[in-house]
C-alpha cells in the first residue's frame, strides 16, 4: 500500500470509522438479509441515523463517517418547522401566510443547492447530496433560535427582548456556521477554503436575518 507510507493520525482527532465490506464482494445470500428485513427494522435504522446526525450537529467534531450516510429527512423536518414558525411575520402578509411559507422553503433549498454547486465548481471532493445533508442539518441551531425568539416575543417586544433575541440569534448563527464549516471545509483544497466558507456564512446570515426581523402580527 504505497499511499499509507505518509499517513499519520494526529493525537487529538479521535479515530473512528465503520468497517464496511465493499459492495462487489457481498454474496447474494447475505444481501437477502437486508433485502428481506422486516419494515420496522428499516424504519428504526433510518430513524437512528437521523438522530445520530442531530447529535453530531450539536457537538460538532471532525468526523468523516457522519458524511458518508447522508439523508435528507433532518433537513426536511427542520426546514418545515422553521418555515412554519416564520410565517405571517411580514408587514404585508395576507391571511394565510402562504407566500412566506413557500418563500422560506425556496430560500433554504435553493440556497443550499447554490452553495453545493459553488463548492463543487471550486473543486470540492464532497458529493452533491452530502453537502445538502450537512447544510440542512446545520440549520438546527437556527431553528432552536427561532423557537426561543418566538417564546421571548410572547413575553414582550421591546428593546430588551430585541437585545435578548439578537444575542441568541448571533450565537446560534455562529454555531451553525462553525458546525457546517467543520464538516465542509475539509473537502476543499486549502487555498480555497475562504471561497467556500463565505457563501455558507451568507446563507446562514440570510436565515438569521429572517429570524431576527420576525415580528408576529
Amino acid at each position: 500500500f504505497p499511499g499509507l507510507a505518509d499517513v499519520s493520525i494526529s493525537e487529538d482527532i479521535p479515530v473512528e470509522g465503520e468497517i464496511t465490506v465493499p459492495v462487489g464482494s457481498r454474496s447474494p445470500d447475505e444481501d437477502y438479509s437486508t433485502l428481506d428485513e422486516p419494515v420496522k427494522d428499516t424504519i428504526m435504522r433510518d430513524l437512528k441515523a437521523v438522530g445520530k446526525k442531530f447529535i453530531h450537529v450539536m457537538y460538532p467534531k471532525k468526523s468523516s463517517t457522519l458524511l458518508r450516510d447522508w439523508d435528507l429527512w433532518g433537513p426536511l423536518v427542520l426546514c418545515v418547522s422553521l418555515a412554519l414558525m416564520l410565517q405571517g411575520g411580514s408587514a404585508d402578509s395576507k391571511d394565510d401566510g402562504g407566500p412566506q411559507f413557500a418563500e422560506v422553503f425556496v430560500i433554504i433549498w435553493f440556497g443550499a443547492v447554490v452553495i453545493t454547486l459553488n463548492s463543487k465548481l471550486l473543486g470540492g471532493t464532497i458529493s452533491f447530496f452530502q453537502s445538502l445533508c450537512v447544510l440542512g442539518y446545520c440549520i438546527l441551531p437556527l431553528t432552536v433560535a427561532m423557537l426561543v425568539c418566538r417564546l421571548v416575543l410572547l413575553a414582550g417586544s421591546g428593546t430588551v427582548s430585541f437585545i435578548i433575541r439578537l444575542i441568541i440569534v448571533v450565537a446560534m448563527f455562529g454555531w451553525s456556521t462553525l458546525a457546517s464549516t467543520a464538516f465542509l471545509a475539509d473537502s476543499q483544497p486549502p487555498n480555497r477554503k475562504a471561497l467556500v466558507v463565505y457563501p455558507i456564512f451568507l446563507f446562514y446570515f440570510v436565515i438569521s436575518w429572517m429570524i431576527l426581523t420576525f415580528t408576529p402580527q
Partner: protein
Amino acid sequence: RHPLATFFHLFFRVSAIITYLFCDWFSNSFVACFVTILLLLSFDFWSVKNVTGRLLVGLRWWNQIDEDGKSHWVFEAKPMPTRAASTEAEARIFWLGLIVCPVIWTVFFFSSLFSLKLKWLALVITGISLQTANLYGYIHCKLGGQKSLS
C-alpha cells in the same frame, strides 16, 4: 403475497394527488395543505425506495459513499426465476403506480404554471423530482438486472 406493501405503495402517492386536487375542501390554509402533501410525498418516496421496491419486484437502488468521498449509485436486482401469478399482478401494480404518478404531477406542473398559481409550483416540482427519482432508479435496476441475466 404482500398486500400491505401494495396498498402502501399506492396509498401515499394517490393521497398526495387527491390532497393536491381537493385541498380547498379539506382546509382553507395553504400551509396545512403544503405540509401535508410534502409529508405524503416524502413518505411515499421513502416507502417506495426502501420497502415496496424490494418486496414487490425485488429491486433496490441506493447511493453509497466510499472512503475517499466518491459517491456511487448502486442498482441491484434480485434474480427471479419463477414468476407466480400473484407476483406478476403485484409487479404490474408497482410499475403502473410508478409511471402514472409522475405523469400526473407533470400535468399539475403545467396547469399551475399556466393558471399562474405559482405558490404551488415549489410543491409540484418537489413531487415531480421525488417520483421521477424513484422511477429512474427502478428502471435502471430493471435494465441492469436484465443485462446481467442475459
